[in-house]
Each structure stands twice: as structure tokens, then as C-alpha cells.
């Protein structure tokens, strides 16, 4: 039996300030498909400044690839700023809504797990629970792993949103 080991490239989080229009969004997504870059998740929503939007893009690749992604993003006329948060101190969150079956283990056990992850129960039916969890991607991944054996019925994740921390000094307050 042969097994393929997939070595995942390091993850990078890019925060991109763009003009709020669909053409820009399509152009940015188009770069990833036409140039063959990886795209783990992408978010796009209005910024505080009118007419602007903030995108958080998580991608994978070596330093050279990410440098190219950075340059190609800047080549899009409506892109104002690209910040690679990978080597910066940043705040990153993702939200997920997970529907879990309670048939196998019953509600209390799942609610205990939810508590451990500081997740909220947002919907209950006779045989399912819907949980809302917020955190960085690793935490969301971890909770999903724990819940899998109970039977995840459906799930919706937002993908990461991230910003640079104002304090970039030596003390890690994360």
C-alpha cells in the first residue's frame, strides 16, 4: 500500500484594503485561479471608510510565492494596501456555526465540549444542537475535530478576519 504524504505549505494571512466593488473582488479572486495560487479562505466586507472594503485572505505557499501574490495584488488598480500578517503580531478570528447530532451521546456531553471551547448553544431540537464558536482558525479546527465522532450534520465557517495589532513590540500579549 502506498500512502501519499501531503506536506502543506505554510499558511499566510493577508489583509487587503480595496475599493468596494464587485469588479475588484472578481479581479482578486481571478489572480488566485489564473496564476495557480492556493486560497484557503477569503472574506470581503465594507470598511469604516465609505466606498472601501477590507479583505482577509488566507493562502498557502513558500515565501517566494507569497511575495508574488503580494505583488500581483498590488497590480490590481483598485487595491490600496496589502499587509502580510504572517510575520506580524495580529488579531485573527473566525466564527463557525456547527450543527451536531445528539443521537449518539446526548446533549449534556456535547454541551460540555461546547463549554470547553467557550462556544454558545444557539439552537436546540430534539436530536440536534447548533453551536456558535469564535476563535482563531486552529481553535475552530480543534473543536470540529472533537465534534466529528458525534456526527456533524452541517457547518458554516466565515473564514478568518484579521487585523494587525497596534502594538508590535517585543512583549507577546497574545
Amino acid at each position, binding site marked *: 500500500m502506498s500512502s501519499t504524504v501531503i506536506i502543506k505549505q505554510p499558511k499566510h494571512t493577508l489583509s487587503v484594503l480595496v*475599493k468596494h466593488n464587485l*469588479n475588484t473582488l*472578481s*479581479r482578486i479572486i*481571478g489572480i488566485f485561479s*489564473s496564476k495557480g495560487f492556493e486560497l484557503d479562505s477569503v472574506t470581503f466586507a465594507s470598511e469604516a471608510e465609505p466606498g472601501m472594503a477590507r479583505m482577509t485572505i488566507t493562502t498557502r505557499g513558500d515565501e*517566494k510565492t507569497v*511575495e*508574488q501574490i503580494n*505583488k*500581483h495584488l*498590488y*497590480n490590481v*488598480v*483598485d*487595491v*490600496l494596501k496589502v499587509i502580510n500578517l504572517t510575520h506580524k503580531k495580529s488579531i485573527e478570528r473566525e466564527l463557525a456555526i456547527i450543527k451536531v447530532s445528539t443521537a449518539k451521546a446526548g446533549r449534556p456531553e456535547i454541551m460540555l465540549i461546547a463549554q470547553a471551547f467557550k462556544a454558545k448553544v444557539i439552537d436546540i431540537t430534539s436530536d440536534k444542537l447548533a453551536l456558535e464558536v469564535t476563535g482563531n482558525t486552529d481553535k475552530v479546527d480543534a473543536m470540529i475535530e472533537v465534534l466529528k465522532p458525534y456526527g456533524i450534520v452541517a457547518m458554516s465557517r466565515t473564514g478568518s478576519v484579521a487585523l494587525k495589532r497596534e502594538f508590535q513590540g517585543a512583549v507577546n500579549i497574545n
Partner: protein
Amino acid sequence: MKSTKTITTAENISKQSPLQPVFRHNVEDAAQLYSGSEILLKTLVDLGVDTIFGYPGGAVLPIYDTLFGNTDLRHFLIRHEQAGTHAADGYSRATGKPGVVLATSGPGGTNTVTGIATAMMDSIPLVVLTGQVPTSVIGNDAFQEADIVGITRPITKQNYLVRDVNNLEHVLKEAFHIATHGRPGPVLVDLPKDMLNTKGKYAGLDNNVDIPSFKPTLYGHHPQIAKAAEMLSNAKKPLIYVGGGAILGQAWEEVTAMAERLNIPVTTTLMGLGAFPESKPQSLGMLGMHGTWFANMAMTECDVLIAVGARFDDRVTGRLNGFSLNSRKIHIDIDPSCIGKNVDVEVPIVGDVKHVVPAIDKLASPPKIDKWWATIRKWQKEHPLVVPKADDKIYPQHMVKMISEVTNGNAIVVTDVGQHQMWAAQHYQFNHPRSWISSGGLGTMGYGFPAAMGAALACPDRDVVCITGDGGFQMSSYELATAVEYKIPVKIALMNNNCLGMVRQWQQLFFNKRYSYSVFGSNNPDFVKMAECYGCVGLRAENPKELKEALDKAMAIKDAPVLMDIRVVEEENCYPMVPSGAALYEMVESDEEAAK
């Protein structure tokens, strides 16, 4: 208002500054309202546009109505929108000004796609205006509707759908600004029919639009420039590698000055031909897949390489892990994404070659490279470009050389794609910039003839020779009608070998001579009769004497297109050649070598 027209000659071309459109403000009109079509034409005149290539249709009827009787700009009715886009592209390459093409919605727009992609790959400033169905029915699959903004997104630098007529002037000025600044490229503006009829404001805005998100870096980083100068000064085997960026950035004088003062050998890419005069002793000609032996060897052996507006294309580098392994590399480019894309460089300099090259020149001192020159001279003597022995047949290489002689190297040479393109690049002596017009990046067959029309209309005082093949010419031969209608004096030198020569060459060398669908044989049309049926002059040459006569006759005709059916040796192959997947130094110079 009269349109201003500058006559371009080989001599005065460098004195023009074509990327800056003529400024004209009609502020007195500010209070009045105009229809979208009127705003469009007024703005085009503002931007210095004097020529449009177009084709009418339902969605753009309002524009054509406004054009009726208009004397501010020349409109040429081409016979196919793809040819119109190529013509606008040829117009731009000959002058440096942005080319403008106008097409209707749906099929009109989709027909421009190949032309836009061609311009995108070679960084040619184009503004493509397309009609669109009225905004109220966009998305409803209306008659002649196509999402042209979506279709052209990956092949344009930027594109727009105009949704407010009051914004039209601004969008157009932004489009021209983006097309011509930084690394140039095509920009498309989609104009819904209701936007053309609705009345709106025309403000006479400044042509220099301020776009906060679009500020190309022009001046290189000084420490990098100093480092580059130091590397060149101390080099033992330096080489200057000049690409199309030196033409687009109008830096041919700066490049020539630096190369001559520092006495460093220069090789140009296909797109860079003319950026450095090939008559100068420093010139090694073109490099790459069909470049000269000595240029490719100089690239392989050099110790300091300075790339000026070139992008290390695969046709230039050959196999990457065998490409110029011993050199320290300097790369000047206005587009940061070109740097480090294919080849890692030690000194990246993001900036306009026009500014960066003289800055390096100022700090560098001529390196001591007598030994390097001796090596190169020896290579040049031992491995010149191979030309077959003359006999009573026309060899393609001789044909190009004869055109070069007849035109004194002063013509604008426009080509299609394939063997004839490579022979033209090798054997025509290019001494002037903007004199070589060819689809390099995309390799678009059918490009040559319409682009030659665009160049001839842009530069009425220069001879324009379209060197094409029987394959490529048949992809846009219908434009003979346009050339005859407007008396466009393009000299079409059709290198007729009755086959798709480059395809046949590859099939001979790499597919065991299985000539699958590459030979036309006797199925080609009679090109002389074809010329005559359109009402232009057709000539045929079957031996060198007839060729000379045909060329002399053609050059004397100044008010009509001429089609020369030149019967060349059919099985001739183009050498030197770097076989696909080989390194530059593994190039072959003959059929015998290729067979090994």
C-alpha cells in the same frame, strides 16, 4: 476643433513624447448637458485621440450618429473587430500613443478578445470601447448581450462598466491614464446604450487623473542603483539584456548611451528589437529560442547581467536550471511582479527604465573587459547567423535581407507569427525604435496585416512592410478591403512556403516528419488574384531577380496596398534553435545537429 497630427519618421521618433496626450480643456461647456455619445467624443478629443478603429452595431448606433460628419477624429471602418483591435495595437506600437478601438455589444466585444489578450501580453496601451445592452436589461440575455467586463477581466489591466453618464468623462480619463502609465496595458470601457443617449455633465477634467491606489514607482531605490553601478564597473563579463520595456518606456537613447559609454555588449529580446541599434559594434542581436549563437552564449557565460525592461520569458531563458548560472543579476522593471517571477535576481530595481538606466550610467565606470570582447568576437566569427548559399531560388533569409536593403533598415516591419517572424527578427537590421511590430507574448497569427495598417495610418511618412506567411495572412486577409478603401500603403511581403512553416519544422524535428495538418500545398489561394479582386496590386516573385523587381515596384506605390506573393524554398528551417526544454547553450544550428 482640429485634430493635431505629428508626422513620425525614423529620425524624429525619439523627440516625441507620445505617452502624454495633448491637453485640451473645454471648460466653457461646463454648464451645458450633453448626450453620453457627445461626452465620449469630446473626451476622446481632450485626450489627444485622433484615430479610432471601429465597427458599428445596434448598441453603439448613438456613437456612430455622433461620429457622422465629425471631423475631430478619424474613424476607420475595419472589417472585423479583431483586426480593429490589432490595428489600434499597431498604431500604438508605432507611436507610443494609446490605440483606440470601438466595437458593438455581444459579438463585437467578444471579437476584440484576441486583440486585447495580444496587447496585454506585450504591454500595449489600448482603450477598447464596447457597446452594451441598456442597463435595464443587463443580465437578461438580451439580444447581443455578453458580459464583456467579465470576459476580459483577466486580459485587461482594468475595465469598467459605465452606470452613470455623469461619471463617463472621469471613467474615460481614468482608463487612458491607467492604460498609459506604469506598465502599459489594455483597458476596456463598456458603454450601455442608455448611457449613450442620456444627457449628462461634461466638466473638462484634467487628463492627469489622480488615482490613490495607482501610483507606479518611477525612480529606483538609490542604494540598489549604486550597487548595480558598482557591479557593472567591476564586471569581467557583463551583458545588457534589453526587453520591450525599453521601447515602451522610451528609454532607447538612455540604453544606447550607457552601453556605448561603458562599452558593454547588448542583446535584445524579440520585443526589444530597435531599442539598441544593431549597426553598433556592441550589438549581439536577438537572444532566445531563435537568437544568435553568440548572444545565447554571452547570456550563458556572463558574470554580471543587467535586465532592462525584460521579463525572463521562457522563449528567452530556455531551460531555467541551465540559464546564465554564473551571473549576478540586476533586474530593472516598472512592474514589481515581473521581478523574481522566473529567475531570482540579486539586485531588483523597481522603476522606470527611463530614470533608472541613466542613474546607473552616471555612477558606473567602464569595466575592463577586453578579454570578454575577444571571446565574443571569436564566437561571432565562428558562429554567424547561417544564410544559405544564393542560387536561383528565394531563400527566406535572403528575402528578409533584401527587404532590409531596399528599405535601408528604415521601414516599420510588422509580422505575423512563425518562421517568417523569426527570420525577420534575425535578418532585418533594426536601427530604430518603434520599427518592429510583432506579437511576441501571445504569438497571435493574423496580427500582422491589420497591425501594419494601424502603423501605416499612424506614420504616413514611413514605409510599412508587413512580412507575413501564407498561414497568418489568411487569418486576416479580408482586411485588404479596408486597406484599399482608405488607400493604406502597406507592402505585404507574403513569405509563401505553402505550409505552416514553424509547425512543419517542429513536426520534422520532434515528431518524426509526420506533417499533421500543417501543409496547405496546392490548396492555397492564388494570392495575386486575391489582391486583384479586392482592387489592390498583386505581384509574384519566384526567383531573386523577380523579388528585387517586385520590391522596387511595391516601394514606389505610395497610395495603395501591395501584396507580394513570394515563393520561397518550402522546406527551409529556422536556425539557430534552442529546442523546447533545452538550455540556451544546447542550441542547434542545422538539421544535422538537430537530428542528433
